Structure formats: structure tokens, C-alpha cells
């Protein structure tokens, strides 16, 4: 390991994913870049009635419950517990969270070697880096960014799965309500949607690899309707300009954030999967 990797090794529990990606130059991180930081993958051409029927069916589905305890900023001891200068914080709380994760894993597999435990720690810390960013931003308790829904095969929107040229597709729907926002973050597509399952399958060989693309895993977003005035999606340096039925993607590591200033909910489909070629 080089000097930087050692630094990560020492501090990774407290690192911001955004800052790690920045230091590893996983994206251009150039404030002056005029490059468009997203691309339209394809347009799914369906009549307006298809999309409206899909949305009508979708909003009748109960939103998924999510484990967002990691949004909670601990109040005991040090309320300002993440210092943005070096991103170090409260070891006790971080360690307790890891032990909890490990205990859950042990209970599911019954046997775990010390080597596996070390490997799990590294993978856990990769997920933890995203949580650290949210904590660093001071996001309030219970802030879930948007409602998430999954659908059954009898929902009209399940037809979208036949249009997408990916393997191992997972599709979820995100409804961002008025004045809700998604804090700036960077996805690790290989651990999206079902991170605990995918983490057990993923075997990075170095800490740098933990923060690197797995190549075939991608994430796409489909707009279920034209964006209304005030519905904003920022991808890197770009504001997304897309219309109903457009599916857009982005290079690994592009930070993104969204906000809905309009008076209407904003509906999209979130796709993860593996490219075939």
C-alpha cells in the first residue's frame, strides 16, 4: 500500500466518500468543467397514458420502509461530532455500529473467520463513508430524501424492464415530494439497492478498489414525466435536461443532488444492473 492507502486505512471509518473520491480523482472534480456530466442512454417511447397510468398505480403502493438510523446525528457527548477538517469523530459510536453490523452478519452465517471479518470491515467502511457524508451535512433524523417503492409484475410500469439492456436488473421508484431534497452524494452502483447482499459477493482486494467502479454495474434513472418548473436534478456540474421516457446514466463517481421546489411530486424509476457487453 502507498502512503495514501495507509492514510485511508487509518482513518477510513471517519472518511467522507465525497472527499475520498476527490482525493482518488474518481471524477474530474473541476468546478470550471463544462462537460455534461450525465448522458441520455435511451428514450423509452410510450404514450403519455402509459406513464400516467403507471404513476397512478405506483402511488397506491405503500412506500418501502428504510433503515435510515444512520441519518441520525448523535446528540450525546459531542453534538458536532464530525470535524470537517479531518473527518474524525466519535470512535465509540462508529465501533459500536460496526460491531452491530458484524453481529448481524455472524447471526446470518454462523461461522466467520478473522480474515473474513477484516474483509467485511473494509466493505462496511465503504458503505459507512456515504453515511458519514450525510452526518457531515447534519441531515435531520427521519429525513428519507424521497419515498421508495417497488412494484409487482402486474403493474404497468414493470414493462420497463423489457426495454432495458442490462443483466441482474433491479428497479425501484422514487417519489420526491415538494420541498424534499437529496443531499449531495456519490453512488457505489455495485452496492446499490441491496448493499448487504451485494457486499457479501463483492471482493475488493485493496482499499482503493473499495472506492473504485466494478465496471459492469451501472445505475440509470428514467423520468416518468417531464420535469416541472422547480424540479431540479444536478449531476456534477450539469443540470439534467431530460423529458418523459428519457433514461439517463453517468460515469462512475459523479456526485449528484436533487431538490423539488415545485408543488407537485416528482416520480422517477431507479435502475441498477450489469451491462451485457
Amino acid at each position, binding site marked *: 500500500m502507498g502512503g495514501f492507502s495507509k492514510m485511508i486505512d487509518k482513518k477510513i471509518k471517519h472518511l467522507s466518500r465525497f472527499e475520498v473520491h476527490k482525493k482518488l480523482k474518481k471524477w474530474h472534480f473541476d468546478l470550471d468543467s463544462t462537460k455534461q456530466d450525465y448522458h441520455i442512454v435511451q428514450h423509452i417511447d410510450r404514450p403519455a397514458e402509459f406513464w400516467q397510468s403507471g404513476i397512478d398505480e405506483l402511488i397506491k403502493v405503500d412506500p418501502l420502509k428504510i433503515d435510515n438510523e444512520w441519518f441520525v446525528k448523535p446528540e450525546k457527548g459531542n453534538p458536532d461530532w464530525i470535524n470537517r477538517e479531518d473527518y474524525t469523530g466519535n470512535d465509540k459510536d462508529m465501533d459500536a455500529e460496526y460491531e452491530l453490523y458484524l453481529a448481524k452478519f455472524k447471526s446470518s452465517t454462523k461461522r466467520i473467520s478473522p480474515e473474513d471479518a477484516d474483509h467485511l470491515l473494509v466493505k462496511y467502511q465503504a458503505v459507512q463513508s456515504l453515511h458519514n457524508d450525510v452526518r457531515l*451535512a447534519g441531515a435531520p433524523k427521519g429525513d428519507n430524501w424521497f419515498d421508495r417503492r417497488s412494484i409487482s409484475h402486474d403493474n404497468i410500469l414493470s414493462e420497463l424492464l423489457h426495454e432495458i439492456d442490462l443483466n441482474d436488473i433491479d428497479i425501484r421508484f422514487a417519489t420526491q415530494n415538494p420541498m424534499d431534497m437529496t*443531499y449531495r452524494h456519490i453512488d457505489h452502483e455495485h452496492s446499490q439497492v441491496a448493499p448487504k447482499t451485494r457486499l457479501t459477493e463483492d471482493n475488493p482486494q485493496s482499499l482503493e478498489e473499495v472506492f473504485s467502479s466494478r465496471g459492469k454495474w451501472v445505475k440509470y434513472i428514467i423520468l416518468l414525466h417531464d420535469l416541472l418548473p422547480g424540479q431540479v436534478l444536478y449531476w456534477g456540474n450539469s443540470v439534467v435536461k431530460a423529458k418523459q421516457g428519457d433514461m439517463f446514466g453517468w460515469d462512475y463517481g459523479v*456526485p449528484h*443532488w436533487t431538490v423539488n421546489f415545485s408543488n407537485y411530486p416528482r416520480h422517477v424509476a431507479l435502475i441498477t444492473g450489469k451491462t451485457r457487453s
Partner: protein
Amino acid sequence: MKLTISVGDVASDIVAGVKESEQYKLIFHSDWYWGHSVLVNNESVKWNANTVFNFSVKPQINVANLGDRGHDIEMEFLRID
């Protein structure tokens, strides 16, 4: 009116209460950073420190700071009488 938009702040039509006039200025005192979103009359804008926008009609301004604690949005809205 000077405004500091810190991380986690999101607000719409922030100058709605400003008195009517024939000219207004919006001046930014900090640089745009990843996580910042400012809409002026429903158009996303980007800026650097000292960027000035002039208006003959009071604009609708929506703001959100979704970045990090080290990067506030510092801005000033002026009514020119």
C-alpha cells in the same frame, strides 16, 4: 438583504416579501460548489463570487444547499430605488 444559505437549508421564493421597485440586484459573495442549487425564475444558475444578476421585475428565487458545512452560499439581494 444579506443571506447565508447553510447546508441543509432549502427555501422557496425567498425575496417575496421585499418591497416592489423598478430595479433589483442579486450579488453572490461566494463561489458555486457541488451541492448548491439556486433557481432564479425557475432557471438554475451558477455563479462565482461577485457575480451580479440585474432585474427590472422582482424575481422568484429558490435556494438549497445540499453540499457540506464548509461551503455556505453567501448572497445579497438589493432593491434599487
